């Protein structure tokens, strides 16, 4: 039996609102400590991992792509903790169970690891791409282990050509909440929006691996992170008062993910937002609630945030989002630095995504404006990595004002890297807190 980590919920906000104001913003920092990850191996939670490798024909080009993918898969298998259930799926226009042969999943040990790697060695690249099929098989495999932390690692190099977006959407709807899926795109022939949709829906991460050589290290790190998870299916529960509207609930750190439409009603005036599996880690959420304003001097509980494991109805941590109306402008006009920081991050991400979209569509004016805005925001907020990525897509004349010119020739890798990583955020400096 594994131990559930302890969750600490901290709220950063300026609770003072001017008279008549309705919108309450808060950054909620959730930190999980302890639990199965930090105990002995016997205390580690049961886990089940499916590794999905794209073996479509395009994986041959260049030939190192498939061999790198095999090496990466082997690295991930080696990283699996002793006793963890696992399976390897190869994906084309259908999904095929590569290991274990008889079906189902097996526990990791020296023998099964060796057998799995042998099976991976026999993989050949041919055929098409139907990611929905791959996810469906992973779901079937993981369904036999409902009490384990269920995780999938998905590698692809191409677009989802052999099924329609509707088919993929239907699969995603069916498997949502069943497991967490981290997605990696290798090369530049895959669609950022497509993988982001899968990762966001299945509460995992998405990243680009431009060179096949980089796969092995990334897969090992992903498997290590999966092994670090101690509790699955954690939800952020948000209570709001009668008459209030939740404008949005977004994860803003370590990456942007909008959870607003993932709400399920859990209790009167309460809704649960899925956050997936947790190890020892910390995440930030931006919660925006619209309330009916009260009188000057009144205090209101605009929201109560708790972390819960829905089935167990176990409350793991709690925090309060407050609203106090005041006529003191010195109080009400102060913007909480954490809220400002993540509002800026969200704006930066959407400026990049909209700018790249406009660029693709040939709308030079809009692309220049959006990407210029992104440069200014990245400069202002100290996003050096993002600023560097932007500099490969636009020529920057003035980083402060965001005066830029679109580059005529842009490397596809640079464009896709910028797009994929636009949602990766930087933690706010807590020293700025008053």
């Amino acid at each position: 039996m594994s131990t559930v980590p302890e969750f600490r919920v901290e709220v950063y906000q300026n609770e003072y609102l001017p008279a008549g104001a309705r919108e309450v913003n808060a950054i909620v920092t959730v930190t999980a400590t302890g639990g199965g990850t930090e105990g002995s191996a016997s205390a580690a939670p049961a886990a089940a991992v499916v590794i999905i490798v794209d073996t479509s024909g395009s994986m041959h080009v260049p030939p190192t792509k498939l061999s790198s993918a095999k090496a990466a898969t082997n690295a991930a298998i080696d990283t699996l903790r002793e006793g963890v259930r696992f399976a390897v799926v190869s994906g084309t226009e259908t999904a095929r169970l590569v290991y274990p042969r008889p079906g189902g999943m097996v526990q990791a040990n020296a023998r099964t690891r060796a057998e799995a790697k042998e099976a991976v060695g026999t993989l050949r690249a041919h055929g098409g791409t139907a990611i929905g099929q791959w996810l469906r098989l992973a779901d079937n495999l993981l369904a036999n282990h409902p009490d384990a932390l269920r995780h999938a690692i998905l590698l692809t190099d191409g677009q989802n050509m052999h099924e329609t977006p509707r088919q993929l959407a239907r699969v995603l709807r069916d498997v949502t909440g069943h497991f967490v899926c981290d997605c990696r795109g290798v090369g530049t022939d895959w669609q950022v929006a497509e993988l982001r949709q899968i990762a966001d829906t299945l509460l995992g991460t998405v990243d680009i691996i431009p060179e096949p050589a980089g796969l092995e290290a990334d897969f090992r790190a992903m498997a290590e992170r999966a092994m670090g998870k101690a509790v699955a299916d954690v939800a952020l529960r948000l209570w709001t008062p009668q008459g209030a509207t939740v404008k949005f609930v977004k994860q803003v750190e370590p990456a942007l993910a909008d959870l607003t439409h993932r709400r399920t009603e859990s209790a009167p005036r309460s809704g649960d937002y899925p956050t997936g599996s947790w190890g020892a880690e910390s995440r930030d959420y931006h919660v925006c609630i619209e309330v009916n304003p009260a009188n000057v001097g009144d205090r209101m509980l605009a929201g109560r945030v708790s972390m819960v494991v829905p089935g167990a109805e176990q409350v793991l941590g709690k925090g309060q989002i407050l609203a106090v109306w005041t006529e003191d402008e010195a109080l009400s006009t102060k913007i909480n630095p954490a809220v400002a920081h993540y509002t800026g991050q969200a704006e930066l991400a959407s400026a990049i995504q909209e700018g790249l979209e406009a660029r693709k569509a040939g709308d030079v004016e809009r692309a220049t404006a959006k990407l210029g805005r992104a440069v200014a925001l990245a400069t202002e907020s100290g996003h050096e990595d993002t600023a560097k990525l932007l500099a490969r897509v636009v020529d920057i004349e003035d980083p402060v004002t965001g005066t830029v010119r679109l580059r005529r020739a842009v490397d596809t890798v640079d464009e896709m890297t910028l797009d994929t990583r636009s949602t990766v955020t930087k933690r706010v400096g807590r020293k700025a807190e008053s």
Partner: protein
Amino acid sequence: MTELQCPSCAEPVAPADRFCEGCGTDLLVHRTPVGGPAGPIAAPDRECVACGATEIGADGFCERCGRGQPTGRDRMEYDLGVVAGVGDRGRHRSRNEDSMAFARIGPEDDPRAVVAVVCDGVASTERADQASQAAADAAIDVLASAALEDEADLGAATRAAVDAAVAQVSELTSREPPGSSPSCTFVSAAVTPRGVTVGWVGDSRAYWLSSRAPSRRLTLDDTVAAQLVAAGMDADEASRVFHAHALSSWIGADAGDVSPHVVSFQPDGPGAVLLCSDGLWNYLPEADDLAAKLPAGGVRPLTAAAELTGTALELGGHDNITVVVISYPLRSPR
């Protein structure tokens, strides 16, 4: 014969004892706590101040509408049977700078006297809430001590109570940075079987309210406008005078020598003495209108004070509201 015992520690006490030998409780004078009665009177099924729901969370917020329930000085309630008071922050001020203090001398079923004070902190001054509470607490000590004597001169006691309030507020001022001078108004009532003595400084008021005999205001505001009206000017004209509603007299270090107005009278029937801040009388200045708002029948002072406060809140609650009601004669209504 049943032996008398201390209500606080159950130690046996003699009828003439003023203090309990066991725990030191004052057996004769029952008064509001020093520093003011913080928060509403605890009730198991208390309703949310905003939506009326009865589910109040352990963290003090309504589980339905989220409103933080009043704490501390936001809502002050105290009940001593024949006298009770309610104070409320109102709907527009961020602090409650009104204060009250009152005391009942003698047992609940047969009190010898009731004394009460309401002070309204002047909002433009720093720490006006502390000033008004310190003034009320100091004054009530003087009035309660005087009311212990059967033949006390309650007019002289009222003047002494104002002196004590001035001293207390000045003491507070001496610890403040120069330039900020907390100050407040003052209205008091001392009610005994022999009659009612009312004293005031500023624009907090006292009323005599009765359902049978005519009700009337007992005080004349220390404002420019009120004094002009008293001198014969038309009320509308007086209220247009520059600084018409500015206080012409108040309690504070910068107020100089203050001498309160003191009036005494013998009610000619049953009724109630009402002390209030302008948060109530701005909405209901006429004595008859106030009397009409009182619950009919045997008026329970706490009910009356809560009703009048509620009315002021419904009418806008623009200022802090404090209402103290003393029933006359000094009998606790059933």
